């Protein structure tokens, strides 16, 4: 039987397009120090560390060993977890497993990336099969453009509908001092931005960011002594589906997110997600995901995403605020991105989200997205499960 586990502390850097003042190791150290300060622990209290990024973004293969000075893993167990865009959620889930297993009481999860150090697309395409997919459909844009086009055709969604999602997230980022892009934009700005690949325009997609995040997980009995109001892990689930871009059914919705969220809801006893979840930090790498994937998460029915957004249900003060932090469209330090979703969700549950706090959060949802349409889902709650 798994032990109950809670998040007791979070830390993140001030995310920027470039961090010339620190190398990767020193940037990791900043996030770890902030997470330890947040829960008033010393590195010596930490029993094990899980770290993740994407190797090709910095050309550093053994981040688990290379980073120990910054991660605090000197003479501790440390493990690297790399699952593409989902990496940050996967390190969180792996840290959860470590504590839930009973082998470790306090585990630190770290995600980071220095996207300014490489050619992001050249690095990303190494995720896909070199013989079949790499030359034609790899990188972030082609498959997402296909998904967006299919969705628009199926339900009559418009580019303006998607732009509304980008504007929401970028507006929310104004309340997050850590966010990378903190300049307000309008629907007109999104529509006027350069077309990358129909229907995706420059302001529909996430930036490239340098940043790191760290989250401390602790076991039942230990957690309550560290944090008066820890964020309990109610459920987590991961679904990694295809490795061929041509195998994806682009008309069926994001299958991995449908399946992962269904499992997580069942474990957490959630029947009506939009009513029972108070805030969601979703890995939405581009605006169209904010229309379609909330349907896959069951916030609304198929094709109802644009109306759900237009009616303000996902705005601050709405039925289920999405991405109070500004989300991925405002900050994307890839290996840290999904862990930031978990950290931000935990901060909401713990009442530590400052200016971007949603009032009275009992249940928060965090997701990760990556690779070839993969999804990770975590549900956090104020009540001990």
């Amino acid at each position, binding site marked *: 039987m798994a032990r109950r586990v809670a998040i007791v502390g979070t830390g993140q850097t001030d995310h920027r397009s*470039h961090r010339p003042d620190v190398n990767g190791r020193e940037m990791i150290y900043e996030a770890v120090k902030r997470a330890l300060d947040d829960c008033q622990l010393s590195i010596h209290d930490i029993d094990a560390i899980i770290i993740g990024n994407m190797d*090709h973004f910095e*050309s550093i293969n053994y981040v688990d060993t290379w980073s120990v000075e910054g991660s*605090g893993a000197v003479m501790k167990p440390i493990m690297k977890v790399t699952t593409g865009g989902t990496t940050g959620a996967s390190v969180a889930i792996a840290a959860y497993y470590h504590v839930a297993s009973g082998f470790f009481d306090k585990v630190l999860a770290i995600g980071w990336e220095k996207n*300014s150090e*490489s050619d992001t697309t*050249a690095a990303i395409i190494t995720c896909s099969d070199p*013989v079949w997919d790499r030359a034609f459909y790899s990188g972030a844009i082609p498959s997402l453009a296909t998904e967006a086009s299919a969705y628009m055709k199926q339900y009559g969604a418009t580019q303006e509908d998607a732009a509304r999602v980008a504007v929401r997230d970028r507006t929310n980022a104004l309340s997050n001092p850590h966010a990378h892009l903190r300049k307000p934009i309008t629907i007109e700005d999104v529509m006027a931005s350069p077309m990358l690949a129909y229907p995706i325009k420059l302001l529909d997609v996430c930036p490239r960011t340098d940043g790191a995040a760290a989250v401390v997980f602790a076991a039942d009995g230990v957690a309550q002594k560290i944090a008066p109001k820890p964020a309990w892990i109610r459920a987590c689930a991961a679904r990694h589906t295809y490795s061929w871009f041509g195998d994806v059914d682009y008309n069926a919705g994001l299958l991995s997110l449908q399946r992962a969220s269904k499992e997580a809801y069942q474990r957490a006893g959630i029947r009506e997600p939009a009513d029972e979840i108070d805030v969601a930090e979703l890995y939405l790498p581009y605006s169209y995901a904010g229309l379609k994937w909330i349907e896959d998460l069951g916030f609304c029915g198929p094709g109802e995403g644009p109306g759900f957004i237009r009616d303000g249900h996902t705005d601050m003060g709405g039925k289920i605020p999405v991405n109070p932090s500004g989300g991925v469209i405002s900050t994307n330090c890839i290996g840290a991105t999904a862990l930031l979703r978990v950290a931000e969700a935990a901060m909401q549950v713990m009442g530590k989200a400052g200016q971007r706090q949603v009032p009275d959060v009992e249940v928060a949802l965090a997701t990760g997205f990556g690779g070839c349409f993969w999804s990770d889902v975590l549900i956090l709650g104020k009540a001990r499960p």
Partner: protein
Amino acid sequence: MTVNLNQVESLTLQGQIAVPYTWWVGRVGSRFLIALRDEAKIIGNRCNRCNTVYVPPRGNCGSCFEDIDQFVEVSNEGVVSAYTVVRFKYPLQPVDTPFAYALIHLDGADVSLAHIIKADLDKLKNGVRVRALFKERSERTGHILDIDSFQII
């Protein structure tokens, strides 16, 4: 239909990954490289908690997990603490063979600096004293090889 693999030519796909990288050295490491470039000096930094002097300097002490802010100049001389003479050729080697990869324990430092020795390889042994040979000022770019090599004294 079953495929008899003996009758199928096994094809390969030739490829090369060309991803350019620009690694930020960071403010602490940059200070070290700038001292090499501009002053032909080697600096380290000292952890105030455990007193370890690190060369090259770094942002925090891995053991104490505390910031390090005290820079110290160490000597351009020290002793060889380990070495191996390299005879095989390989494109990523910094210079032509033969040369030695060596760890240099500089006077005033508590850890060794990894570098190369190019001359008098027959005189190499652990404990032998060496001195940093800097490139000419005009050739120094803020790189660890602004120290051309270490020379046996």
